[in-house]
């Protein structure tokens, strides 16, 4: 066991060969996490990755930490039992859009409602990868099962940010597989936060849904298509930083900074700490609006008491209150009687 400061990415690597398709976005995510963890100061044996089922959920096998590849959709519930009893561990949940928003939607909501200090990495590739290409709850309406002469999906997709907000997730982050630098920075932010982190990662399923996020990757479109959020900074974007978000009443609008009508100070300023969640709520609507950039970065960041801490407090408080009654005494309390020999 090495001292934290001397840790290297290799210390977080397992001996298993990685088994994703060539070109899968999961490789990039794995790389940035292995690269970032050493700096976070927790040695591998204090770290546990818990996943469900899916391509994304194979993730723990490739980490040199403790890892548990559980069952479909249940990772948040299993992680809850682990964190509630082992607050000392650094716990990461890895899940997919089907795993967490289809079969696992309810556990996800309750994990964030209770607020355990874990980070949930949602690899959103807008498809069921492992089962070969069915549409998922984040797939756009009309998406077809690949290689099938099927008519498209008639399901309206979820907006993951709205789900996280509904569960009052104290920290909400979004990044994208290909942007290793941003990913790394965001992973650090997530690790620093005490409380449940909802971390959506746009991930390219090269084989069954390739290019779903092309506009956010393509050098030419990317700066116009994405809004990099920074706390306290105006929401300005565009290749020439010539566009911004302005609030008109409740509704956000994209303004053109070149046109002259508006200046930078008309731009809405980002506030991670908005308790009400209303600002995050506005950012969530961007993906439903035409010609709006996709916000990435720390969307929300507030503090809420953690479930495992409150649980520990209760146990400790009760133990003191208990006034040192022994278990034997408990059994023998209440109405008892002796039968003489």
């Amino acid at each position, binding site marked *: 066991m090495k001292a934290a400061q001397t840790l290297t990415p290799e210390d977080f690597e397992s001996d298993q060969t990685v088994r994703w398709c060539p070109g899968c976005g999961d490789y990039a995510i794995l790389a940035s996490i292995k690269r970032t963890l050493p700096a976070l100061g927790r040695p591998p044996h204090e770290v546990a990755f818990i996943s469900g089922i899916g391509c994304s959920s194979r993730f723990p096998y490739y980490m040199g930490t403790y*890892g548990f590849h*559980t069952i479909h959709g249940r990772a948040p519930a299993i992680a809850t*039992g682990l964190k509630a009893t082992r607050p000392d561990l650094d716990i990461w949940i890895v899940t997919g859009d089907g795993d967490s928003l289809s079969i696992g939607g309810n556990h996800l909501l309750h994990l964030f409602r209770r607020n355990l200090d874990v980070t949930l990495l949602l690899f959103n590739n807008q498809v069921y990868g492992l089962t070969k290409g069915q549409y998922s709850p984040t797939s756009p309406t009309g998406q077809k099962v690949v290689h099938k002469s099927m008519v498209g999906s008639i399901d309206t997709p979820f907006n993951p940010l709205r789900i996280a907000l509904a569960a009052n997730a104290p920290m909400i982050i979004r990044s994208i597989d290909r942007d290793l630098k941003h990913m790394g920075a965001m992973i650090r932010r997530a690790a620093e936060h005490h409380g449940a982190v909802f971390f959506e990662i746009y991930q390219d399923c090269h084989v069954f849904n390739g290019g779903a996020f092309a506009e956010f990757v393509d050098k030419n479109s990317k700066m116009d298509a994405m809004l990099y959020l920074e706390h306290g900074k105006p929401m300005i974007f565009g290749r020439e930083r010539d566009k911004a978000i302005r609030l008109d009443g409740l509704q956000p609008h994209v303004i053109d900074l070149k046109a002259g009508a508006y200046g930078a100070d008309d731009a809405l300023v980002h506030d991670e700490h908005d308790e009400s969640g209303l600002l995050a709520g506005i950012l969530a609507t961007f993906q439903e609006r035409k010609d709006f950039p996709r916000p990435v970065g720390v969307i929300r960041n507030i503090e809420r008491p953690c479930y495992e801490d409150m649980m520990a407090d209760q146990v400790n408080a009760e133990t003191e209150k208990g006034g040192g009654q022994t*278990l034997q005494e408990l059994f023998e309390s209440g109405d008892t009687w002796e039968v003489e020999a």
Partner: protein
Amino acid sequence: MAKSAVELQEAVIRFADDSGTGMQVSGDQFANTSALFGNDLSTLPDFPAEIRAPAGTLHGISSFQVRFSSKDIHTPGDQVDVLIAMNPAALKMSLHLVKPNGIILTNEPSFNSAKNLRLAGYDQNPLETSDLDKYQVITVDMIDLTNKALEEFAKLEEEKDRLSKKEIDRAKNMFALGMVFWLFNRPLEHTVKWIQTYFDRPNRRKYIEPNIAALKAGHIYAEATDLFAASYEVKPAILQPGKYRNINGNTGLAFGLLAASQKSGLPLFYSGYPITPASAILHELASYKRFGARTFQAEDEIAAMCAAVGAAYGGSLAVTASSGPGIALKQEALSLAISVELPMIVCNIQRGGPSTGLPTKTEQSDLFQAIGGRHGESPLPVLATSRPSDCFDVIYEAARIAVKYMTPVLLLSDGYLGNGTEPWPIPDLSSLPDIQPQFAADPEGFEPYSRDPATLARPWAVPGTPGLEHRIGGLEKEDGSGNVSYDSDNHEKMTLYRAEKVQRVAREIPPTKVDGDPEGDLLILGWGSSYGSIRAATDQLLAKGSSVARVHLRWLNPLPNDLGEILKRFKRILIPEMNLGQLRHYIRAKYLIDAEGFNKVQGQPIFASEIVCKAESMLDEQKRGASAINESCTNAHARRFRI
């Protein structure tokens, strides 16, 4: 004027009234008083699935039956000596249980209400017809008497202390209890103490005096009047020496877990989702946080099961409980627990099925689900409680096996055991067997799926241990390394390991106890809550000189190694069950023996008398080779429903 008491060996009393009127309390008080007095006893609470059905309806009746004796007993009794029927519906629901010439104590005014009679389905007041001629019916206007006795409280100066008529009426259950205490020469002290503590809460204290007054008034009234032909006395039973308390099965389970946690040094984690009749375990444990118990009310049973898996992975003594429908939901995650070979306990407090079924009634019909209800070859040890007082031991043993063999263990109890009470000889913690978890710590040559040669247990290597970082999951694992493996030979090997590991648990089972003749005409084999009836039935049969014996199984999977040999020593095997023959099925498959069943699926315990009747007809058949008797009674219930 006082009468000298008639001595009885035992008596069965049944209190019945609308739910929410305190009948459970009256029954409970009588039971505890008798326990303290030294009787052996057995109780049977029975309440409706609705929270509170409308007053006077048949569905709304809540009853509490207590049997107390100077000999040791094992069932709440098939027949009732004294029925306290506070309204017509209560009478209608329980009358069939009352012995000929038994005492029926009724509250007059509620029988004068046409509505009550109609709701109970009487077109005439049964107290005025000849229907009850063969019983000793005692009719008392408890409302009026209680109100008289509590007059003063209706007149108090202080508005806030003053009681309304409605409040006073509610004390009638204490008046009735007072009468019954007199009838059986029981002291009032215990109940008086209980009243004083129970109502010692803000806004409740004003009820202390009135309730005590009502209790005493009932006692005095019975004493003063000539209502009862006699008063009775049931002498203390000669139980094993030791310290006792009354306990119900669910509390027994909770206590057993606290003990296992303390003895093993493993922190206790209990996750559950409320469901009848298992919820009480969660409530109990939640109030024992001071012993380090962490309780988690999950969003559903799947989450409860998964949280237990997570806690077990982290090194806790993990437990979850539910009843049939909830256990169904746990199976997929339980299969994961079997695959990753982590220790935990899953309790099923059985109730009537299928589906939502009869939530407040008891049944033994989840044995198939317990042993075979998962996909793939996914074996696990299964054991069952058989009386409220053994729940403590059984769950303690479950914990010991789970930890020693690194496997989830499934424990079967049922609603009757969960709610029913019995005197419990309080164990001495220090005398309980050790539970020694073996946590892996040495990275040298560590393999997550290496096995203990004796138990085939894999090491328990919890996160946080330096140098033991490893990955596990639900995919098939390579023997030793635990790496994912699709190799066919390895899969078969691991499948056989998982099966063999559970079989080896049989080594832990002590020689099977055969009560009665070591060999002979008939063996009565049972499991679970039919214990009391089977025991009582065998005792009666033996007393009559029949060549019978009984075996009651705690372990259902694996079965005891010596069971096959025992079964062969008897001409016939009878297996009474509250299902359509689930244990019978396993016995037949394993031993190829033509075991017969007595199967009752009525949401109620089997009666000893029913077993005796069935057994005697079988014994007769053997003698006479005739199955004449058979029709007469044993299949009575089956015949009723020939379809």
